[in-house]
């Protein structure tokens, strides 16, 4: 597979390490009433779609960027690659 890195252009997937569902960015608030339940949901309940999947890849043998890659799990077609940092900032994560 080839991942089109937003900063570095097309790179072979061998340079990357896979983590999983991009929802791991959305870490719950530790002070919520039901924090334990939320964390449980966050950590263990994943969708496993046959089709488009937003997932985290780490450019370990490269610039060490975490990327959010939108990949079709059936065809491996990649329709989007973003810096995970940008995705996280957009979704309101900060400090």
């Amino acid at each position: 597979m080839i991942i089109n890195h937003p900063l570095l252009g097309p790179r072979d997937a061998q340079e990357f390490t896979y983590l999983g569902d991009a929802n791991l960015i959305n870490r719950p608030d530790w002070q919520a009433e039901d924090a334990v339940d939320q964390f449980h949901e966050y950590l263990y309940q994943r969708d496993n779609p046959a089709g488009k999947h937003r997932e985290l890849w780490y450019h370990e043998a490269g610039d060490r960027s975490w990327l959010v890659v939108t990949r079709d799990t059936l065809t491996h077609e990649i329709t989007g690659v973003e810096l995970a940092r940008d995705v996280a900032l957009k979704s309101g994560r900060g400090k």
Partner: protein
Amino acid sequence: MTQTMRLGGGMIDRSKPLNFRFDGKSYQGFDGDTLASALMANDVRLIGRSFKYHRPRGVLTAGSDEPNALVELREGARREPNSRATVAELFDGLVAQSQNRWPSLSFDALAINDRFSNFLTAGFYYKTFMWPAAFWEKLYEPIIRRAAGLGSLSLAEDPDSYDKGFLHCDLLIIGAGPAGLSAALTAARAGAEIILADEDFRLGGRLNSETHPLDDAPASDWINASIAELESLPNVRLMPRTTVIGAFDHGIFGAVERVSDHLLTPPEGKPRQTLWRIYTKRSLLAAGAAERPIAFPNNDRPGILLAGALQSYVNRWAATPARRIAVFTNNDTGHRTALDLIAKGIEIAAVIDPRPDVTRTGDYPLLAGAVVSNTAGRLGLKSIEVRLASGEMRRLECQALAVSGGWNPNVHMTCHKRGLPVWDEGIAAFVPGETGAQGMFVAGAAEGRFSTADALTRGMEQAIVALGELDRKAHTIALPKAENDTGSITPCWQVKGGKGRAWLDFQNDVTTKDVKLAHQEGFRSVEHLKRYTTLGMATDQGKTANMGALAIMAELAGKSIPETGTTIYRPPYTPVAIAAFAGRSRGTDFRPTRLTPSHQWAVEQGAVFVETGNWLRAQWFPRPGETDWRQSVDREVLATRRSVGICDVTTLGKIDIQGSDAATFINKVYANGFAKLPVGKTRYGLMLREDGIVMDDGTTARLAEDHFVMTTTTANAVSVYRHLEFARQCLWPGLDVQLISTTEAWAQFAVAGPNSRKLLEKIVDKNFDISNEAFPFMACGEITVCGGLRARLFRISFSGELAFEIAVPSRYGDALIRQLMQAGEEFEATPYGTEALGVMRIEKGHAAGNELNGTTTALNLGMARMVSKTKDSIGSTLSEREGLNQPDALMQVGLRPLDKSRKVTAGAHLMVRTAAANAKNDQGYITSACYSPNLGHSIGIGFLKNGAERKGEILRAVSPLTNLEIEVEVVSAHFIDPEGKRLHA
């Protein structure tokens, strides 16, 4: 008499005779031969025995789809079983052996299996050898494997090297037949970067086997001119002897180049084979088509081969299996074959064609509406039996029979990315459907366009479209005038009503009977049929077999062929040696070896090394007279605790963390608090995974307000860094913090023992005060050593002694260890390795990898109170889960044997004294154990249910695996200096 079956003409170089041996007998062939063609020229028809029934077999094909002619090629360590004689390029000195026969090829004792064929049908093994289960592995399987088998491995190490390479191109053309060559010329002239790969050593594809002229001249003229032009262009890479083995994601292909397979041994410095990864913008599959046999009784005898293959042998290699040959065909190929044979002076016994209305195209006897209903000749064909249109039977003498059941486009590569082929009634074959492969085009016979003119035109057209997609304008080229006979076919999959078995899969001995049996027993889907009968599961992957079996299953099920389905093709297209996949990753080159900065010095000291991950670390340093590793390790431990020891700890991960929010960041990734760590201090940090399990531990030093240095365990250096980057970029992207791994940048040594300060004072420059008052336990600082060399000093201790770790830029590591050892002479400074390091940390009760094993929590490690509840940190929320906080949770304890002479073993489980040793009574387990030279007996640390409350209890440590059972007392894990006085000295 040699080469009695050699004809005139052909593409062999008669000025270059090549000597070779087959089954111990010497023969001669010519340059340009394959092993199969050379054997044929020498009238050797019997080449192998079949897998199950040990039936005598000869060549069926002239290419990589060969199921029969498998041999052990070469000798000694280079011996390679299951090599296809049809693609083994002849070289001088080639040695081959037939396989799966005993004692000899012409008399094979296990041919008795053939007599028992009624018992050995599909599913026989499953049904017969089911009971008793234990017999399977010990008795049945070895016997069956001996009886039914292929070649044998040499079991010697492969003496050759294999390589991997990477290529990029605009257009990869797979196959250099008429379609591939015309595409290559079109694309090359347009200036595109192209690769033209073909599995054959001679480019030209089917043109080399046929006699059709191009522009009224032999096709070889056009081939040679085309190749000469392509070779002259800098944007073209011609790759003969290269099989494209698979289409992968995003236009990436795998290919194996047989660099030296056609030579006795690889030339100096050359690999035997290279595995290429080819990155393409577009690809064109021009892989041609493969002929398929017809299933008729006893259709597997030596001398029966495919018609198109016979054309190859006669036209390209000037070799024939017989002087009188019959042809059995349901399409025009057989008639063309007959004409080619006549042109070479071979007598045609008859052309048998089941089509009643077919007409002759030349001067040969034609039996229209007839079929071959049986054959005779045990070790080679002698005669065939023909059922005429009238129903009358006729026997024909002939020593070879050419069979053509039609052609299957080689669609394999279009299916590797889940593309499914579609049925084309006109040619009675599957043609490519949606390929699913990014940027792939198909041209010529591979798309079911069988005429030469079509192939030439389609190759050009597809190249123009492919390049057009890359915004490159390619122009039409002048193509030679060629035959444009699209041919006709009436499907004929099997001849019914004859006596005897009719083979579908020659290599795995699957007959039409087996397909019927599968149908009868309900294994009707193609995938079930495959697995039940083993059809298509041999080394040839059923290239000549699958289509026929599918058609017969369709007929039995009363369905059409497309309704019945097709099996999925997967890479590789042809078998690939494991060595090619391994490439240079063999032996010590399997992965990189990382050496510590003191490695050379340690080698000089005669150190014994151990692999820890990719690192080689000194395990201990034997001294003259020491005969057992324990003597060395005990000495190193005692010397360190008595005076001073030195250990290279560079392998620990080091992460440099900087930024105005660095403290905030570290506070989030460690469970314990770091926000208030003063500058100049170091703190132990406990890192949790989000699920509350301990991930890693280490120390983090604050060198400045906005500058920290974190250490990790050696094993987790990479994964912790990755985790921190995840936290920084994905969880808290707003923090001003930057990370970089500096593991390799700093050489770091532990200097431990009561004299460690005195030793370091000789090294550290005088303006830095490292006295206990100025530089207390857990202090850190940037200093200089040896007269101005920048260094970092940490007063931390893994051994439990007064200890420091000193770091200098890596390139000074070797100098520093020599300096330390020299300065340490007066203290008898002793280098110690990983074993002594381990002993000292167990004596001190420090957790390491055995305890941080991915299942343990802070509570288990006795560090529950370190997990701060006043801040958010990774893992803190889920560490509170009920299941992880049971009252009888495992707690780290120390263990010592009641009988001091007994050895404590890591991995042993703990049981109360009176209970039976079983999982139900399990109280915990021992994680680390060693002999403590300071205490004079064996000790261990481990996890025990409610362990904090059980000091003084006597338990049994049981290890059924090693027959160990000893009584141990639960004690504190801090065997040495439990008050920590030494640390603060």
